[in-house]
């Protein structure tokens, strides 16, 4: 488990790195956008080589566990907390968890809500453990829209969703350490909308949505966003987004939410399958 935390913090998954590299190639030579992408690229290499955090904000610690019926969640939780404590001692994670009322930071990263662990049961006997470290800067530029939105002229249809999502890109500019990836959920309530939008970030960047409407929307928004000239860090340039992932869940007739989670270029997610002994058998990304 410690190795999962370490690797998540110090290595960018291959699917993300590929797209970052494509972005670097695309930027005009001699621009500050190119310069930013070069530093990003070099940072990725250095973090891996030195086994140190890609970004100093090692983020909210979010585990997603798919497990068989009968899986011992309590023991897992304890193991996850121990791994987080240990990873913090070793400097793979920053002392990053603060008491919201007193402002105290006990330096362990373990406390109410940290780490957060989502369990999902499935019929298979395998255990999948995915980990995402979600930075604060990009989390702060996430947005939730309630449609219709008159100001954006966004109605309750896919066109309206497109307007809302592109508004989120415009408002975010480079503030969430762009180029970023959007995880979007259409529908749900205020809580589940954001939850599902984050889970979209578990998808590989090169996968395609099985729903043709959403697939079209993903491709179109990615292209349009990259034509806006926001660029890496908001310096201007061609690479504003690295990917867009959208899902839809049912809503109640009265609500129509579009929830957008923004993930920075320092996209830290990893995953493993565990064998019966609880050891890592394969890496998922």
């Amino acid at each position: 488990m410690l190795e999962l935390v370490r690797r998540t913090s110090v290595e960018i998954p291959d699917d993300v790195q590929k797209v970052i590299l494509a972005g670097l190639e695309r930027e005009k030579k001699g621009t500050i956008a190119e310069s930013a992408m070069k530093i990003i690229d070099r940072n990725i290499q250095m973090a891996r080589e030195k086994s140190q955090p890609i970004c100093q904000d090692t983020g909210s610690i979010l585990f997603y566990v798919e497990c068989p019926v009968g899986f011992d969640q309590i023991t897992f939780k304890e193991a996850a907390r121990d791994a987080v404590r240990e990873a913090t001692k070793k400097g793979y994670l920053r002392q990053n968890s603060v008491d919201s009322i007193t402002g105290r930071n006990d330096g362990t990263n373990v406390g109410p809500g940290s780490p957060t662990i989502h369990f999902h049961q499935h019929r298979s006997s395998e255990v999948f453990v995915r980990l995402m470290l979600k930075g604060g800067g990009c989390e702060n530029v996430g947005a939730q829209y309630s449609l219709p939105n008159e100001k954006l002229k966004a109605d309750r249809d896919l066109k309206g969703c497109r307007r809302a999502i592109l508004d989120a890109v415009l408002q975010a500019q480079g503030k969430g350490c762009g180029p970023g990836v959007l995880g979007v959920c259409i529908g749900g309530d205020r809580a589940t909308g954001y939850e599902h939008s984050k889970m979209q970030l578990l998808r590989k960047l090169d996968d395609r949505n099985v729903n043709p409407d959403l697939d079209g929307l993903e491709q179109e928004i990615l292209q349009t966003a990259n034509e806006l000239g926001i660029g890496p860090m908001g310096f201007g340039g061609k690479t504003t987004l690295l990917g867009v992932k959208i899902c839809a869940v049912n809503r109640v007739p009265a609500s129509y939410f579009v929830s957008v989670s923004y993930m920075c270029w320092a996209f830290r997610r990893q995953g493993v399958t565990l064998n019966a002994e609880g050891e890592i058998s394969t890496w998922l990304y």
Partner: protein
Amino acid sequence: MVRLNRHTAGKIEQITMKELSFPFTEEKIRALKVGDEVLISGTVFTGRDAVHKYLHEGGELPSGVTLRDGIIYHCGPVMMKQDDGSWKCTAAGPTTSIREEPYQWQIIRDFGVRAVIGKGGMGERTLAACKEHGCVYLHGIGGAAQVLAECVKKVRNVYFLEKFGSPEAIWELDVADFPAIVTIDAHGNSLHKEVFARSEDELAKRL
């Protein structure tokens, strides 16, 4: 493991970079323009949310911290204590600056700060204070914690470690060739405003 980026390994091209070294005089600062790439060398002090709020509320700087003609860096680094009691900086990228917008103008004015390093840009009040008092906003590469930690040559001291915790403490750092982009200059220009306006127009065409 695919190594996709080998061909870009090595030194970042520094042809267009301007050096910005200690002492950070008003003259040097006023010579900078939006879009310039700079390599910063000298002493910088980290300060983020807790420090800004504290100074805004009338708190005093601990002795040893001088911001006059100095640089404040919005950063909460990862620091590891070494066996000999010294500190090693293992990750040190910029944090989002806009949270300090309510306080920054006043701190530039009252403490004579010449440059603020951060990410994401700042707003109108900081822009006005930069123009009036001769200060610039330098945009570091957000998330580039390793590249930037390597520019930290020495951790000279730490203040308010107990009071605010490690990420929020004031760390006194010696940096060399720390890369950043001037996105707010001392002449009233802001790259953030320009890019926002341009992207807003482009989006309007595509809706």
